[in-house]
């Protein structure tokens, strides 16, 4: 009697419809949260699809020449994005040139030397720098940094490195150099906080072993700890590079918005993100808009590849440290 009622209830459960089973809550919450997780893939797919689809007219009209020619003439229907690509690369290079040594050195100080409490406080402050909106960096760039560069930095550069083509020509304030400097300040926090994390993940035994055989603190850091954390630090640099390439407002405000390719870092330039920011809202005509979206697609491709690389490098280091 008892066994037949159990069998009956089992049969009853099996016969319940999908809807009835969902009423339990487990399945509903599983499905809803799964749907949201899948939605993220949809959003990313949508980004790719919209960029790709909307840049088709420009891709068909120019193809690879879009990236190889430098005439940007909305009235004549000619669009070549080389000057923008050049500006994006040059400003990011300047930014990394300054931010990498400063950032990695700060990370070394915070991870290897500063007492934990001080290190946490300073890291907290440096991460606040990352929270400052980019338009505020632009505002400060225009009114604070440009005059400083004009009065102090440029005369100094000209008198010491003036023979280089990099520092020739007249300087109006807005320039590749100014944009690169603002970008440097903006990406340093990313390098510091990620590099510090990977340095802290290096096992203490590695340091102790080096110190035990007579290495100085610096030799331990430079020859043992840094090589151990190398790929993670490169990851943080790539992360910063991706930020620098895609940064819009601060660059737009101090780069000068002139589509020209010159060797001099003191002359005004333009970047991919800046041209989209400046011209998109007023762009008229399918080919014009589509060219700007094509530029956006190029920027998207660049940053995605670099980000993907950065994440893999950071993951590799943290896994190495976890298995050690």
């Amino acid at each position, binding site marked *: 009697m008892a066994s037949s009622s159990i069998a009956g209830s089992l049969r009853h459960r099996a016969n319940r419809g999908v809807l009835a089973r969902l009423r339990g809550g487990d399945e509903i919450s599983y499905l809803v949260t799964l749907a*949201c997780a899948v939605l993220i893939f949809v959003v990313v797919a949508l980004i790719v699809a919209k960029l790709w689809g909307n840049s088709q007219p420009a891709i068909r009209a120019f193809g690879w020449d879009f990236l190889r020619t430098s005439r940007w003439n909305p009235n004549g229907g000619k669009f070549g994005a080389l000057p923008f690509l050049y500006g994006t690369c040059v400003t990011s290079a300047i930014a990394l040139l300054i931010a990498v*040594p400063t950032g990695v050195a700060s990370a070394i100080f915070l991870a290897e030397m500063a007492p934990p409490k001080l290190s946490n406080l300073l890291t907290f402050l440096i991460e606040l720098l990352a929270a400052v909106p980019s*338009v505020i960096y632009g*505002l400060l760039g225009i*009114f604070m940094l440009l005059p400083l560069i004009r009065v102090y930095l440029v005369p100094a550069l000209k008198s010491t490195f003036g023979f280089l083509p990099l520092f020739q020509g007249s300087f109006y304030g807005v320039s590749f150099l100014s944009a690169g400097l603002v970008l440097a300040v903006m990406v340093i926090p990313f390098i510091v906080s990620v590099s510090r994390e990977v340095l802290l993940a290096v096992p203490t035994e590695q340091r102790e072993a080096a110190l035990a055989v007579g290495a100085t603190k610096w030799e331990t850091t430079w020859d043992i700890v840094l090589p151990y954390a190398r790929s993670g630090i490169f990851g943080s640099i790539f992360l910063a590079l991706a930020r620098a390439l895609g940064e819009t407002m601060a660059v737009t*405000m101090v780069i000068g918005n002139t589509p020209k390719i010159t060797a001099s870092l003191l002359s005004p330039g333009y970047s991919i993100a800046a041209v989209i920011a400046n011209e998109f809202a007023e762009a008229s005509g399918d080919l014009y808009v589509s060219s700007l979206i094509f530029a956006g697609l190029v920027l*998207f491709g660049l940053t995605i590849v670099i980000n993907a690389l950065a994440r893999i490098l950071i993951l590799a280091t943290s896994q190495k440290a976890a298995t050690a």
Partner: protein
Amino acid sequence: MKISARRRIVNAVMLSLSGICTLLVISVLFFILGYLLVHGVKSLDFDFFTKLPKPSGETGGGMANAIVGSGKVLLLATLIGVPIGFLAGIFLAEFSGKTFAFTIRYVVDLLNGVPSIVIGIVAYALVVRPMRHFSALAGGVALGIMMIPIAVRTTEEFLRSVPNSMREGAMALGATRAQTIFTVVVPAAMSGLISGMMLNLARVAGETAPLLFTALGNMFWSKGWLEPIATLPVMIYNYAIAPEEDLHQQAWAAGFVLLMLVLAINVTARMVINRGHASSRR
């Protein structure tokens, strides 16, 4: 073993250089704060919060519409980004298998790395183009997409930090998985979740690039959700690159208000999170 003088000097020089670099970076923050404080407070007055912008050529006026506008766009962004990110985060922490979770996490990180201006283009293509005009809604969609990645990672991180014994306790009392998650795990992680979402909001509150051609801007009050709308960051940008000195003053005032808001949220939220971490470690 005696360490040679050269090695000792290199050691001292390099170590102090790293300290100097840290000092340099920190001083930049204080320089920014100080400069903005001086210029911002000088130009800030009551009109800034209550008046509309004046037509070009006239001085005075404020940014009341942009303050409300930023609020509206951020509300939309939160309504779009937070639920999706929160639920996806629950899936990652509570339901997902390892490989799938890894894939989602990777894609979320990539989405987080997409330049904000590109997100702007996508929101333009998704909302502005079909509806044929710029709107608060389009701005909200752009910022909403930008909020998803951090919402996911925050939710996952804080749910994972809830000890498993709490889940086991709830299940042992006969709670279903869903009941366990929504009545035990989520409430236990609540202060972290809220702080994380506030940080997320603070991050997009300063975003300008994705709003330039979605929300666009407006010199007047914007009615409803389908009209172009003024926002603080876009106002700062427009006023900063304008030639008039009076507009620069307004830009400083707006920059000051925006930065104080963002930093205040950051400091409080991070303190709440750190306290939570400290107590869970104990």
